[in-house]
Protein backbone atom coordinates (compact mmCIF):
# COMPACT_ATOMS: atom_id res chain seq x y z
CA UNK A 1 0.00 0.00 0.00
CA UNK A 2 2.97 2.25 -0.57
CA UNK A 3 1.16 4.76 -2.74
CA UNK A 4 -1.56 5.45 -0.20
CA UNK A 5 -1.33 8.18 2.31
CA UNK A 6 -0.57 6.30 5.53
CA UNK A 7 -2.64 8.74 7.52
CA UNK A 8 -5.68 7.46 5.66
CA UNK A 9 -4.93 3.79 6.35
CA UNK A 10 -6.54 1.85 9.17
CA UNK A 11 -6.95 -1.88 9.94
CA UNK A 12 -10.71 -2.16 9.46
CA UNK A 13 -13.42 0.13 8.07
CA UNK A 14 -17.05 -0.59 8.91
CA UNK A 15 -19.69 1.14 6.78
CA UNK A 16 -23.03 1.80 8.53
CA UNK A 17 -23.63 2.32 12.25
CA UNK A 18 -26.77 0.19 12.64
CA UNK A 19 -26.83 -2.90 14.88
CA UNK A 20 -24.67 -4.91 12.44
CA UNK A 21 -22.00 -2.24 11.97
CA UNK A 22 -21.63 -1.25 15.61
CA UNK A 23 -21.33 -4.91 16.67
CA UNK A 24 -18.65 -5.54 14.05
CA UNK A 25 -16.70 -2.42 15.01
CA UNK A 26 -16.74 -3.04 18.77
CA UNK A 27 -15.63 -6.66 18.22
CA UNK A 28 -12.65 -5.48 16.15
CA UNK A 29 -11.71 -2.85 18.74
CA UNK A 30 -11.93 -5.40 21.54
CA UNK A 31 -9.44 -7.53 19.59
CA UNK A 32 -6.98 -4.62 19.59
CA UNK A 33 -7.19 -3.58 15.94
CA UNK A 34 -7.82 -0.04 14.75
CA UNK A 35 -11.31 0.49 13.36
CA UNK A 36 -13.38 3.36 11.99
CA UNK A 37 -17.18 3.18 11.89
CA UNK A 38 -18.57 5.34 9.09
CA UNK A 39 -22.17 6.61 9.08
CA UNK A 40 -23.93 8.91 6.63
CA UNK A 41 -26.34 10.32 9.25
CA UNK A 42 -25.46 13.17 11.64
CA UNK A 43 -25.79 10.69 14.53
CA UNK A 44 -26.26 6.91 14.72
CA UNK A 45 -29.93 5.99 14.43
CA UNK A 46 -31.06 9.19 12.69
CA UNK A 47 -31.79 7.29 9.45
CA UNK A 48 -33.13 4.17 11.07
CA UNK A 49 -36.62 2.97 11.85
CA UNK A 50 -38.01 -0.47 12.67
CA UNK A 51 -40.95 -2.01 14.52
CA UNK A 52 -39.43 -1.61 17.94
CA UNK A 53 -38.14 -4.83 19.48
CA UNK A 54 -34.54 -5.55 20.51
CA UNK A 55 -33.74 -9.08 21.67
CA UNK A 56 -31.93 -9.38 24.98
CA UNK A 57 -29.78 -12.37 23.99
CA UNK A 58 -28.05 -10.39 21.24
CA UNK A 59 -27.92 -7.09 23.11
CA UNK A 60 -26.26 -8.85 26.05
CA UNK A 61 -23.76 -10.65 23.87
CA UNK A 62 -22.44 -7.40 22.41
CA UNK A 63 -23.10 -5.02 25.30
CA UNK A 64 -22.92 -6.77 28.70
CA UNK A 65 -24.04 -3.45 30.26
CA UNK A 66 -27.09 -3.14 27.94
CA UNK A 67 -29.39 -2.55 30.93
CA UNK A 68 -27.93 0.96 31.16
CA UNK A 69 -29.19 1.70 27.63
CA UNK A 70 -32.28 3.85 26.95
CA UNK A 71 -34.77 0.98 27.07
CA UNK A 72 -38.44 1.94 26.73
CA UNK A 73 -40.16 -1.14 28.17
CA UNK A 74 -39.42 -4.85 28.52
CA UNK A 75 -42.02 -6.92 26.71
CA UNK A 76 -44.08 -8.72 29.32
CA UNK A 77 -47.01 -9.48 27.03
CA UNK A 78 -47.30 -10.65 23.43
CA UNK A 79 -50.66 -10.23 21.74
CA UNK A 80 -51.91 -11.57 18.44
CA UNK A 81 -54.92 -9.83 16.98
CA UNK A 82 -57.25 -10.88 14.16
CA UNK A 83 -59.30 -8.08 12.65
CA UNK A 84 -62.50 -8.25 10.59
CA UNK A 85 -64.52 -5.30 9.32
CA UNK A 86 -65.41 -4.07 12.81
CA UNK A 87 -64.75 -6.93 15.21
CA UNK A 88 -61.56 -8.47 16.54
CA UNK A 89 -60.19 -11.47 18.39
CA UNK A 90 -57.11 -11.11 20.57
CA UNK A 91 -54.90 -13.80 22.06
CA UNK A 92 -52.30 -12.80 24.62
CA UNK A 93 -49.33 -14.66 25.97
CA UNK A 94 -47.58 -13.83 29.23
CA UNK A 95 -44.84 -15.68 31.03
CA UNK A 96 -43.34 -14.10 34.15
CA UNK A 97 -40.12 -16.06 33.50
CA UNK A 98 -39.66 -14.58 30.04
CA UNK A 99 -40.36 -10.96 30.80
CA UNK A 100 -36.81 -9.91 30.02
CA UNK A 101 -36.43 -11.74 26.71
CA UNK A 102 -36.92 -8.64 24.63
CA UNK A 103 -37.48 -4.93 25.03
CA UNK A 104 -38.75 -1.96 23.07
CA UNK A 105 -36.23 0.75 22.18
CA UNK A 106 -36.20 3.80 19.92
CA UNK A 107 -33.48 3.58 17.26
CA UNK A 108 -32.36 7.21 17.51
CA UNK A 109 -31.59 6.55 21.18
CA UNK A 110 -30.54 2.88 21.08
CA UNK A 111 -28.20 3.09 18.06
CA UNK A 112 -26.67 6.24 19.51
CA UNK A 113 -26.06 4.59 22.88
CA UNK A 114 -24.47 1.56 21.20
CA UNK A 115 -22.07 3.77 19.26
CA UNK A 116 -21.17 5.67 22.44
CA UNK A 117 -20.20 2.33 24.04
CA UNK A 118 -18.16 1.41 20.97
CA UNK A 119 -16.32 4.75 21.12
CA UNK A 120 -15.47 4.11 24.78
CA UNK A 121 -13.86 0.87 23.66
CA UNK A 122 -11.72 2.54 21.02
CA UNK A 123 -13.86 2.64 17.88
CA UNK A 124 -13.33 5.81 15.86
CA UNK A 125 -16.77 7.06 14.78
CA UNK A 126 -17.21 9.17 11.64
CA UNK A 127 -20.76 10.54 11.33
CA UNK A 128 -21.93 12.81 8.48
CA UNK A 129 -19.92 10.61 6.12
CA UNK A 130 -21.58 8.99 3.12
CA UNK A 131 -19.57 6.23 1.48
CA UNK A 132 -20.05 6.71 -2.27
CA UNK A 133 -18.21 3.57 -3.30
CA UNK A 134 -15.77 0.91 -2.25
CA UNK A 135 -12.27 1.06 -3.67
CA UNK A 136 -11.43 -2.18 -5.47
CA UNK A 137 -7.93 -3.00 -6.74
CA UNK A 138 -7.05 -6.23 -8.55
CA UNK A 139 -10.39 -7.63 -7.47
CA UNK A 140 -9.74 -6.90 -3.81
CA UNK A 141 -11.73 -4.41 -1.74
CA UNK A 142 -9.19 -2.13 -0.09
CA UNK A 143 -10.98 1.04 1.00
CA UNK A 144 -13.82 3.53 0.71
CA UNK A 145 -14.48 6.72 -1.18
CA UNK A 146 -16.50 9.38 0.68
CA UNK A 147 -17.80 12.72 -0.56
CA UNK A 148 -14.44 14.22 0.37
CA UNK A 149 -11.68 11.66 0.69
CA UNK A 150 -10.44 8.12 0.21
CA UNK A 151 -9.62 5.84 3.14
CA UNK A 152 -7.86 2.49 3.01
CA UNK A 153 -8.11 -0.64 5.15
CA UNK A 154 -7.15 -4.31 5.03
CA UNK A 155 -10.78 -5.24 5.55
CA UNK A 156 -14.05 -3.40 4.88
CA UNK A 157 -17.16 -4.65 6.67
CA UNK A 158 -20.26 -3.64 4.74
CA UNK A 159 -23.20 -2.95 7.08
CA UNK A 160 -25.09 -0.37 5.03
CA UNK A 161 -28.57 -1.83 5.45
CA UNK A 162 -31.32 -3.13 3.18
CA UNK A 163 -30.55 -1.03 0.10
CA UNK A 164 -26.82 -1.87 0.28
CA UNK A 165 -25.64 0.08 -2.72
CA UNK A 166 -22.11 -1.01 -1.77
CA UNK A 167 -22.68 -4.78 -1.84
CA UNK A 168 -24.31 -4.20 -5.21
CA UNK A 169 -21.37 -2.16 -6.45
CA UNK A 170 -18.89 -4.98 -5.74
CA UNK A 171 -21.19 -7.54 -7.35
CA UNK A 172 -22.03 -9.51 -4.21
CA UNK A 173 -25.73 -8.86 -4.72
CA UNK A 174 -28.28 -7.48 -7.13
CA UNK A 175 -31.15 -5.14 -6.40
CA UNK A 176 -33.87 -6.74 -4.30
CA UNK A 177 -36.94 -7.75 -6.27
CA UNK A 178 -40.25 -6.14 -5.21
CA UNK A 179 -41.57 -9.55 -4.14
CA UNK A 180 -38.58 -9.88 -1.79
CA UNK A 181 -39.13 -6.53 -0.09
CA UNK A 182 -41.73 -5.24 2.32
CA UNK A 183 -42.29 -1.59 3.04
CA UNK A 184 -42.80 -0.60 6.67
CA UNK A 185 -44.54 2.63 7.63
CA UNK A 186 -45.10 3.61 11.20
CA UNK A 187 -46.45 6.37 13.41
CA UNK A 188 -45.37 7.11 16.95
CA UNK A 189 -48.31 8.38 18.94
CA UNK A 190 -47.90 10.13 22.25
CA UNK A 191 -50.06 9.01 25.17
CA UNK A 192 -49.46 9.23 28.90
CA UNK A 193 -47.88 6.28 30.65
CA UNK A 194 -51.04 5.81 32.73
CA UNK A 195 -53.26 5.73 29.65
CA UNK A 196 -51.01 3.18 27.97
CA UNK A 197 -50.94 0.97 31.05
CA UNK A 198 -54.71 1.11 31.31
CA UNK A 199 -55.45 0.45 27.64
CA UNK A 200 -52.95 -2.40 27.32
CA UNK A 201 -53.58 -3.77 30.83
CA UNK A 202 -49.94 -3.32 31.86
CA UNK A 203 -48.27 -2.60 35.17
CA UNK A 204 -45.51 -0.07 35.77
CA UNK A 205 -42.81 -0.22 33.11
CA UNK A 206 -43.92 -3.47 31.51
CA UNK A 207 -44.63 -3.43 27.80
CA UNK A 208 -46.68 -5.14 25.14
CA UNK A 209 -45.91 -6.26 21.59
CA UNK A 210 -48.93 -6.74 19.40
CA UNK A 211 -49.03 -8.35 15.96
CA UNK A 212 -52.11 -7.80 13.84
CA UNK A 213 -53.54 -9.52 10.77
CA UNK A 214 -56.79 -9.16 8.90
CA UNK A 215 -59.21 -6.85 7.22
CA UNK A 216 -57.58 -3.45 6.79
CA UNK A 217 -54.72 -5.17 4.96
CA UNK A 218 -56.95 -7.47 2.91
CA UNK A 219 -55.55 -8.62 -0.45
CA UNK A 220 -52.04 -7.69 0.62
CA UNK A 221 -49.36 -9.81 2.20
CA UNK A 222 -48.60 -7.87 5.31
CA UNK A 223 -49.31 -7.27 8.94
CA UNK A 224 -49.70 -4.57 11.50
CA UNK A 225 -47.82 -3.99 14.73
CA UNK A 226 -48.40 -2.00 17.89
CA UNK A 227 -45.59 -1.69 20.40
CA UNK A 228 -45.58 0.25 23.64
CA UNK A 229 -42.90 2.79 24.42
CA UNK A 230 -42.71 4.52 27.82
CA UNK A 231 -45.06 7.33 26.95
CA UNK A 232 -45.96 6.71 23.34
CA UNK A 233 -47.03 3.80 21.19
CA UNK A 234 -45.85 2.77 17.76
CA UNK A 235 -48.47 1.73 15.21
CA UNK A 236 -47.19 0.39 11.94
CA UNK A 237 -47.65 -1.93 9.00
CA UNK A 238 -45.26 -3.97 6.92
CA UNK A 239 -46.60 -4.88 3.47
CA UNK A 240 -45.20 -6.56 0.39
CA UNK A 241 -43.93 -3.99 -2.07
CA UNK A 242 -45.08 -6.19 -4.93
CA UNK A 243 -48.63 -6.22 -3.52
CA UNK A 244 -48.67 -2.43 -3.03
CA UNK A 245 -47.69 -2.15 -6.68
CA UNK A 246 -50.30 -4.65 -7.84
CA UNK A 247 -53.16 -3.37 -5.72
CA UNK A 248 -52.20 0.26 -6.30
CA UNK A 249 -52.47 1.11 -2.65
CA UNK A 250 -50.57 3.86 -0.93
CA UNK A 251 -48.76 2.67 2.19
CA UNK A 252 -49.86 5.57 4.40
CA UNK A 253 -53.49 5.14 3.39
CA UNK A 254 -53.31 1.50 4.48
CA UNK A 255 -51.84 2.59 7.80
CA UNK A 256 -54.71 5.07 8.18
CA UNK A 257 -57.17 2.25 7.52
CA UNK A 258 -55.59 0.21 10.28
CA UNK A 259 -55.75 3.19 12.63
CA UNK A 260 -59.44 3.65 11.85
CA UNK A 261 -60.36 0.08 12.79
CA UNK A 262 -62.29 0.24 16.09
CA UNK A 263 -59.79 -2.05 17.83
CA UNK A 264 -56.85 0.22 17.01
CA UNK A 265 -58.82 3.47 17.21
CA UNK A 266 -59.66 2.70 20.85
CA UNK A 267 -56.01 2.17 21.70
CA UNK A 268 -54.75 5.39 20.13
CA UNK A 269 -57.69 7.65 20.94
CA UNK A 270 -56.66 11.12 22.04
CA UNK A 271 -53.02 10.47 21.19
CA UNK A 272 -50.84 12.96 19.36
CA UNK A 273 -48.82 11.97 16.29
CA UNK A 274 -45.20 12.77 17.06
CA UNK A 275 -43.29 11.02 14.27
CA UNK A 276 -43.95 9.28 10.98
CA UNK A 277 -41.34 7.06 9.34
CA UNK A 278 -40.73 4.44 6.66
CA UNK A 279 -38.14 1.78 5.83
CA UNK A 280 -37.75 -1.36 3.71
CA UNK A 281 -37.52 -4.89 5.13
CA UNK A 282 -35.68 -7.63 3.23
CA UNK A 283 -38.19 -10.48 2.78
CA UNK A 284 -36.32 -12.85 0.49
CA UNK A 285 -35.28 -15.10 3.36
CA UNK A 286 -32.74 -17.91 3.08
CA UNK A 287 -33.11 -18.41 -0.67
CA UNK A 288 -32.18 -14.79 -1.37
CA UNK A 289 -29.01 -14.61 0.75
CA UNK A 290 -26.15 -13.47 -1.48
CA UNK A 291 -22.50 -14.47 -1.30
CA UNK A 292 -21.40 -13.04 2.02
CA UNK A 293 -17.74 -12.21 1.41
CA UNK A 294 -15.15 -11.45 -1.21
CA UNK A 295 -11.46 -10.55 -1.09
CA UNK A 296 -11.16 -7.83 1.55
CA UNK A 297 -14.87 -7.47 2.40
CA UNK A 298 -17.81 -9.09 4.22
CA UNK A 299 -21.49 -8.08 4.18
CA UNK A 300 -23.63 -8.20 7.31
CA UNK A 301 -27.15 -7.62 8.63
CA UNK A 302 -29.84 -6.28 6.30
CA UNK A 303 -27.24 -5.70 3.59
CA UNK A 304 -27.00 -9.49 3.39
CA UNK A 305 -30.77 -9.96 3.81
CA UNK A 306 -30.37 -11.58 7.24
CA UNK A 307 -33.90 -11.21 8.61
CA UNK A 308 -36.21 -13.84 10.10
CA UNK A 309 -39.56 -12.48 8.92
CA UNK A 310 -41.65 -15.13 10.60
CA UNK A 311 -40.52 -13.99 14.04
CA UNK A 312 -39.93 -10.29 13.29
CA UNK A 313 -36.25 -10.70 14.09
CA UNK A 314 -33.68 -8.53 12.32
CA UNK A 315 -31.65 -6.58 14.85
CA UNK A 316 -30.40 -9.74 16.58
CA UNK A 317 -29.35 -11.37 13.32
CA UNK A 318 -27.65 -8.09 12.38
CA UNK A 319 -25.78 -7.86 15.69
CA UNK A 320 -24.58 -11.47 15.67
CA UNK A 321 -23.57 -11.33 12.00
CA UNK A 322 -21.64 -8.13 12.77
CA UNK A 323 -19.89 -9.86 15.65
CA UNK A 324 -18.94 -12.83 13.44
CA UNK A 325 -17.58 -10.48 10.77
CA UNK A 326 -15.52 -8.71 13.45
CA UNK A 327 -14.17 -12.02 14.77
CA UNK A 328 -13.32 -13.13 11.24
CA UNK A 329 -11.46 -9.88 10.63
CA UNK A 330 -9.40 -10.51 13.78
CA UNK A 331 -8.60 -14.05 12.61
CA UNK A 332 -7.56 -12.63 9.23
CA UNK A 333 -5.06 -10.32 10.94
CA UNK A 334 -3.68 -13.24 12.91
CA UNK A 335 -2.99 -15.11 9.67
CA UNK A 336 -2.22 -11.98 7.68
CA UNK A 337 -4.63 -13.23 5.02
CA UNK A 338 -7.51 -11.00 3.88
CA UNK A 339 -8.58 -13.07 0.91
CA UNK A 340 -11.80 -15.01 0.37
CA UNK A 341 -10.00 -18.15 1.53
CA UNK A 342 -9.78 -16.67 4.99
CA UNK A 343 -13.03 -14.68 5.06
CA UNK A 344 -15.13 -17.75 4.26
CA UNK A 345 -14.80 -18.34 8.02
CA UNK A 346 -17.50 -15.66 8.37
CA UNK A 347 -20.01 -17.69 6.35
CA UNK A 348 -19.12 -20.82 8.35
CA UNK A 349 -19.77 -19.04 11.64
CA UNK A 350 -23.16 -17.91 10.37
CA UNK A 351 -24.03 -21.41 9.15
CA UNK A 352 -23.25 -22.88 12.56
CA UNK A 353 -25.36 -20.35 14.44
CA UNK A 354 -29.08 -19.65 14.85
CA UNK A 355 -28.79 -16.95 12.16
CA UNK A 356 -28.62 -19.21 9.12
CA UNK A 357 -30.10 -22.26 10.86
CA UNK A 358 -33.34 -20.38 11.63
CA UNK A 359 -33.44 -18.78 8.22
CA UNK A 360 -33.06 -22.21 6.64
CA UNK A 361 -35.85 -23.64 8.78
CA UNK A 362 -38.23 -20.95 7.52
CA UNK A 363 -36.92 -20.82 3.99
CA UNK A 364 -40.30 -21.57 2.35
CA UNK A 365 -42.70 -20.20 4.96
CA UNK A 366 -42.94 -16.60 3.77
CA UNK A 367 -43.29 -17.73 0.18
CA UNK A 368 -46.04 -20.25 1.05
CA UNK A 369 -47.85 -17.77 3.28
CA UNK A 370 -47.73 -14.96 0.75
CA UNK A 371 -49.12 -17.33 -1.89
CA UNK A 372 -52.09 -18.08 0.38
CA UNK A 373 -52.34 -14.71 2.10
CA UNK A 374 -55.98 -14.12 1.17
CA UNK A 375 -56.83 -17.21 3.23
CA UNK A 376 -54.29 -17.29 6.06
CA UNK A 377 -54.26 -13.56 6.68
CA UNK A 378 -57.83 -12.76 5.79
CA UNK A 379 -60.41 -15.52 5.30
CA UNK A 380 -59.57 -17.58 8.38
CA UNK A 381 -59.09 -14.61 10.73
CA UNK A 382 -62.43 -13.27 9.50
CA UNK A 383 -64.12 -16.60 10.21
CA UNK A 384 -62.64 -16.79 13.68
CA UNK A 385 -64.25 -13.43 14.38
CA UNK A 386 -67.54 -14.68 12.88
CA UNK A 387 -67.40 -17.71 15.15
CA UNK A 388 -66.86 -15.59 18.24
CA UNK A 389 -69.62 -13.26 17.12
CA UNK A 390 -72.08 -16.15 17.21
CA UNK A 391 -70.57 -17.63 20.35
CA UNK A 392 -70.82 -14.43 22.36
CA UNK A 393 -74.08 -13.03 21.03
CA UNK A 394 -77.32 -13.73 22.89
CA UNK A 395 -80.16 -12.44 20.72
CA UNK A 396 -82.95 -14.93 21.29
CA UNK A 397 -82.19 -16.82 18.08
CA UNK A 398 -81.59 -20.54 17.97
CA UNK A 399 -77.81 -21.17 18.27
CA UNK A 400 -77.76 -24.46 16.35
CA UNK A 401 -79.16 -22.75 13.25
CA UNK A 402 -76.54 -20.04 13.45
CA UNK A 403 -73.69 -22.53 13.73
CA UNK A 404 -75.10 -24.56 10.84
CA UNK A 405 -75.18 -21.45 8.69
CA UNK A 406 -71.64 -20.53 9.77
CA UNK A 407 -70.35 -23.99 8.81
CA UNK A 408 -72.20 -23.95 5.48
CA UNK A 409 -70.93 -20.45 4.64
CA UNK A 410 -67.39 -21.44 5.56
CA UNK A 411 -67.38 -24.12 2.85
CA UNK A 412 -69.55 -22.30 0.32
CA UNK A 413 -67.59 -19.04 0.34
CA UNK A 414 -64.36 -20.84 -0.26
CA UNK A 415 -64.26 -23.63 -2.82
CA UNK A 416 -63.04 -27.06 -1.76
CA UNK A 417 -60.05 -26.73 -4.05
CA UNK A 418 -59.02 -23.50 -2.31
CA UNK A 419 -59.41 -25.12 1.10
CA UNK A 420 -57.37 -28.05 -0.17
CA UNK A 421 -54.60 -25.73 -1.37
CA UNK A 422 -54.61 -24.02 2.03
CA UNK A 423 -54.31 -27.37 3.74
CA UNK A 424 -51.40 -28.39 1.50
CA UNK A 425 -49.64 -25.08 2.18
CA UNK A 426 -50.28 -25.54 5.91
CA UNK A 427 -48.82 -29.05 5.86
CA UNK A 428 -45.81 -27.90 3.84
CA UNK A 429 -45.17 -25.13 6.35
CA UNK A 430 -45.33 -27.47 9.34
CA UNK A 431 -43.20 -30.17 7.71
CA UNK A 432 -40.78 -27.60 6.31
CA UNK A 433 -40.16 -26.33 9.82
CA UNK A 434 -39.92 -29.72 11.52
CA UNK A 435 -37.90 -31.67 8.99
Amino acid at each position, binding site marked *: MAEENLQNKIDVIVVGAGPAGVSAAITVARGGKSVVLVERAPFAGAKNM*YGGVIYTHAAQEIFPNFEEAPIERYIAKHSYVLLSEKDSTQISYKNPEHEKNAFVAIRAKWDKWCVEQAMKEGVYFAPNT*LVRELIVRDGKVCGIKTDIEEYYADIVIVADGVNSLLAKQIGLRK*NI*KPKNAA*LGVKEVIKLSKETINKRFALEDDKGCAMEIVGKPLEKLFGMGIIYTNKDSIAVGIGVS*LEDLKKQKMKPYELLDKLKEHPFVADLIEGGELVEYSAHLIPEGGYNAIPKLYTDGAMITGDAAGLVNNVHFEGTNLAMISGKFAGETALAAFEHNDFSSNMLCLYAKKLENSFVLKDMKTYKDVVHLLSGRCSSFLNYYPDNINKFFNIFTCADGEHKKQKFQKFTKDFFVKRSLSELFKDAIAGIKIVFGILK
Partner: protein
Amino acid sequence: MDKKIEDKLFTLKYKTDSKCHLHPDEAKCLQCLEKTCTIVCPANVYSYNETDKKLTVSYEKCLECGACRIACKYINWEYPQSGKGVIFKKS
Protein backbone atom coordinates in the same frame (compact mmCIF):
# COMPACT_ATOMS: atom_id res chain seq x y z
CA MET B 1 -55.84 12.06 1.70
CA ASP B 2 -52.98 14.27 0.52
CA LYS B 3 -53.38 16.61 3.44
CA LYS B 4 -53.07 13.66 5.77
CA ILE B 5 -49.67 12.63 4.42
CA GLU B 6 -48.46 16.22 4.58
CA ASP B 7 -49.48 16.27 8.26
CA LYS B 8 -47.50 13.09 8.85
CA LEU B 9 -44.40 14.47 7.14
CA PHE B 10 -44.75 17.67 9.11
CA THR B 11 -43.66 15.73 12.22
CA LEU B 12 -40.22 15.15 10.68
CA LYS B 13 -37.01 17.09 10.76
CA TYR B 14 -35.05 17.46 7.54
CA LYS B 15 -31.62 18.84 6.70
CA THR B 16 -32.49 19.62 3.14
CA ASP B 17 -29.84 18.77 0.57
CA SER B 18 -28.91 21.47 -1.93
CA LYS B 19 -29.46 19.11 -4.86
CA CYS B 20 -31.92 16.39 -5.79
CA HIS B 21 -30.80 12.81 -5.13
CA LEU B 22 -33.60 11.09 -7.10
CA HIS B 23 -33.26 11.00 -10.87
CA PRO B 24 -36.04 9.31 -12.83
CA ASP B 25 -35.36 8.79 -16.52
CA GLU B 26 -37.73 11.38 -18.00
CA ALA B 27 -38.01 9.64 -21.34
CA LYS B 28 -39.16 6.44 -19.62
CA CYS B 29 -41.61 8.36 -17.43
CA LEU B 30 -43.36 9.72 -20.53
CA GLN B 31 -44.05 6.17 -21.72
CA CYS B 32 -44.75 4.72 -18.28
CA LEU B 33 -48.37 3.68 -17.74
CA GLU B 34 -48.23 2.43 -14.19
CA LYS B 35 -46.59 5.42 -12.47
CA THR B 36 -45.69 3.04 -9.66
CA CYS B 37 -43.48 5.63 -8.00
CA THR B 38 -46.56 7.74 -7.21
CA ILE B 39 -48.16 4.75 -5.46
CA VAL B 40 -45.46 3.09 -3.38
CA CYS B 41 -43.67 6.17 -2.08
CA PRO B 42 -44.50 6.61 1.62
CA ALA B 43 -43.74 10.33 1.44
CA ASN B 44 -45.70 11.28 -1.67
CA VAL B 45 -42.49 12.53 -3.29
CA TYR B 46 -43.63 11.82 -6.86
CA SER B 47 -46.63 13.39 -8.51
CA TYR B 48 -47.56 13.23 -12.16
CA ASN B 49 -49.29 16.05 -13.94
CA GLU B 50 -51.32 14.72 -16.86
CA THR B 51 -51.70 18.05 -18.66
CA ASP B 52 -48.05 19.02 -18.92
CA LYS B 53 -46.93 15.36 -18.83
CA LYS B 54 -44.44 16.02 -16.11
CA LEU B 55 -43.30 14.04 -13.11
CA THR B 56 -42.55 16.30 -10.17
CA VAL B 57 -40.00 14.99 -7.67
CA SER B 58 -40.26 16.70 -4.28
CA TYR B 59 -36.99 15.13 -3.14
CA GLU B 60 -36.90 17.25 0.01
CA LYS B 61 -39.73 15.11 1.48
CA CYS B 62 -37.91 11.81 0.86
CA LEU B 63 -37.55 9.30 3.73
CA GLU B 64 -34.69 7.51 1.93
CA CYS B 65 -36.43 4.14 2.19
CA GLY B 66 -35.60 2.93 -1.31
CA ALA B 67 -39.10 1.66 -2.17
CA CYS B 68 -39.17 3.62 -5.45
CA ARG B 69 -35.80 2.29 -6.59
CA ILE B 70 -36.94 -1.29 -6.01
CA ALA B 71 -40.36 -0.73 -7.59
CA CYS B 72 -39.10 1.11 -10.70
CA LYS B 73 -35.83 0.35 -12.41
CA TYR B 74 -35.72 3.69 -14.21
CA ILE B 75 -34.83 5.79 -11.21
CA ASN B 76 -31.17 6.63 -10.75
CA TRP B 77 -31.27 6.65 -6.97
CA GLU B 78 -28.66 7.99 -4.59
CA TYR B 79 -28.55 8.88 -0.93
CA PRO B 80 -28.57 12.59 -0.13
CA GLN B 81 -25.11 14.03 0.49
CA SER B 82 -23.32 13.31 3.78
CA GLY B 83 -25.39 14.37 6.80
CA LYS B 84 -28.30 15.65 4.67
CA GLY B 85 -31.87 14.44 4.39
CA VAL B 86 -34.41 13.15 6.88
CA ILE B 87 -33.76 12.73 10.60
CA PHE B 88 -35.78 10.28 12.69
CA LYS B 89 -35.75 10.86 16.42
CA LYS B 90 -38.50 8.65 17.81
CA SER B 91 -38.75 5.62 15.49
